């Protein structure tokens, strides 16, 4: 579903690459976990795959479409759930969803029905016509997720979708992610919650300093590295030094 080769990104004025020579393959219906410390290059990699950033070098394709050939066709296949809430605070949940759904090419009764159905499935129906600025963090996360899936994308990118939410919202969001995957959506997911990733992902990749340091099935990687769990593997591959300051 996703193929990338030699994907690199160096921002203007930066003295090093944020993402360097990354090769990845994500199979259809896979939940691909992208892990790494802060500043590893996860968000930059996702931004390139979501067509928000142009790679400095390398190439990628999603569902057989390359951005250089058919950007709009490729964008029809992808959905994006950013780490930030990315919603208009003064608009209601329904108004936000109507707008983002329209921008992704869905309109009319189809869009309205999908919004009603998704709000219902994530427990937001009573709040559909309330402004986002009155919502809790967990409620915003739920709306943020719905805004990325209204056009039924083949590939959904989730950048830390459960960060900063309570247990209830976290469970609802994870259940939704599983149900989307069960319905055939390929997921690329980043998180700092390693237990959550171990439990959720069929494949994980650990990034550090812009490079892929390991890719594989979580259990196989843990066994191969002879460590107790994913967290131990993560520390083994990335060390304990501070990485926030890029």
């Amino acid at each position, binding site marked *: 579903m996703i193929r990338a080769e030699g994907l690199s990104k160096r921002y203007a004025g930066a003295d090093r690459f944020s993402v360097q020579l990354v090769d990845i393959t994500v199979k259809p219906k896979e939940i691909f976990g992208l892990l790494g410390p802060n500043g590893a290059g996860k968000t930059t990699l996702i931004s390139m795959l979501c067509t928000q950033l142009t790679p400095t070098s390398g190439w990628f394709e999603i569902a057989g479409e390359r951005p250089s050939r058919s950007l709009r066709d490729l964008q029809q296949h992808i959905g994006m759930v950013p780490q930030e809430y990315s919603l208009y605070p003064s608009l209601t949940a329904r108004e936000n969803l109507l707008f983002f759904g*329209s921008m992704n090419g869905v309109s009319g009764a189809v869009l309205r029905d999908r919004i009603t159905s998704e709000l219902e499935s994530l427990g937001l129906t009573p709040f559909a016509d309330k402004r986002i600025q009155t919502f809790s963090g967990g409620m915003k996360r739920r709306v943020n997720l719905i805004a990325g899936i209204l056009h039924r994308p083949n590939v959904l990118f989730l950048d830390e979708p459960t960060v900063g939410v309570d247990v209830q919202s976290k469970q609802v969001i994870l259940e939704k992610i599983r149900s989307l995957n069960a319905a055939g959506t390929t997921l690329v997911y980043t998180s700092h919650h390693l237990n959550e990733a171990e439990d959720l992902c069929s494949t994980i990749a650990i990034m550090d300093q812009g490079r892929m340091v390991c890719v594989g099935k979580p259990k196989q990687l843990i066994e191969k590295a002879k460590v107790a769990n994913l967290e131990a593997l993560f520390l083994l591959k990335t060390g304990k030094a501070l990485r926030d300051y890029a």
Partner: protein
Amino acid sequence: MHKLWAAARKEAQLLRRDLGGLAILFVMPLVLVITITLIQDSSFKSISQLEIPILIVDLDKGPIAQQVLDGLNTSEAFVISEETSEEVAATLVRQGDYKMALVIPEALSEELEEKVTAQVATTLASFGLEEPTDSINDFQDSASKEIKLYFDPVTQQAFKSSVKNGIDKLIAQVESKMIYQAFDNELNEGETSQEQSFSETPFITYREITAGGTFAAGDHTLNSAQHNVPAWALFAIFFIIVPLSVNMVKEKNQGTFDRLQAAPVSYATLLGGKAMVYILVCLIQFLLMVLIGRFVFPSIGLPQLEIGDRWFVLFFVALCAGLAAIGLGLLLGTLAKTQEQAAPFGATFVVILAALGGVWVPVFVMPPFMQALSKLSPMNWGLNAFYEVFLRQAEWQQLLPDLGLLIGFFLLTTGIAILYHRKQQRI
């Protein structure tokens, strides 16, 4: 197309929810145009329509001083008060109690009469009509008399010149009248005839005609409403770049813009949605200002805005000016990274464009370099187009150059915004 409509609907919803922003967009321009027009109204009236407080110190107490006083009273331009001491008058003017003081010197009437009589006698003697006397030559060497004008230090040069011209004219008339009178007396000496040898009616008169005129039939006087409504409407229209650019920067900071970058929608569509709503805002602003000029101005003592039957042309000019302003706002919103960059820069830039464009000071009084620079300001193009319609009753073909520049500016700035956005994605 539905994406464009959806983008426009979202912009309208965002605006509707921002009551403070809406108030700034619609109410502030109205307050601005009323305030500025009230302030500037007097500068559009001729000096004879003003009532300037003036202090007269009459040390002469003769017929000349009386004639000057009568002349000032007749002009109705001044509210006259009298003071006996020159020093007190100077102090009152310096303190700002009076805009000016006029000091008529002692024995002015007597000495002017003597001088005129002497000059007339000299003239008549040169024709052999009268014997020359020593007193004539003595008087010709005497010093001239001085009428002093004290001005409040805050008065501007234009006001001083205008008042000085008025008083000069009055004195010249009094002096001429006296000369005619002296000739009359000498030529008709000993006769009882009441007929005057010289007519006091001026032979040359002038009439002011404004080429083109305004819409008001029979009234060709340019007034503060005809000048201020288009000028400040344009200023308000261009001020749209502040909320528009801030709106765009907010979207970047909220992350909504990042999300849209992953969606199958072009940047041009997103900008188009904004342009559709903000152009409507510009037109509503303009309509409100025109309505204020038509219906509110007369009730607060200002001249009524005359539009005639040219509503469509005026709104087309407002549309073009609005597009130019929106193009600038879209470009600024694309370039700016923070609200702190967008808002102060936008506000200051509009003020600079307004100053350059001739909103505050007419372009023709600017130095040559600034006049050349003013041709680069889109507000100058807009103002020219508005004045063509409001004041010169221009036809479409006369408006085309300015309208073309405004539309071209919109296309250029929006095009640069789209190209810059593409370039940013590659950085």
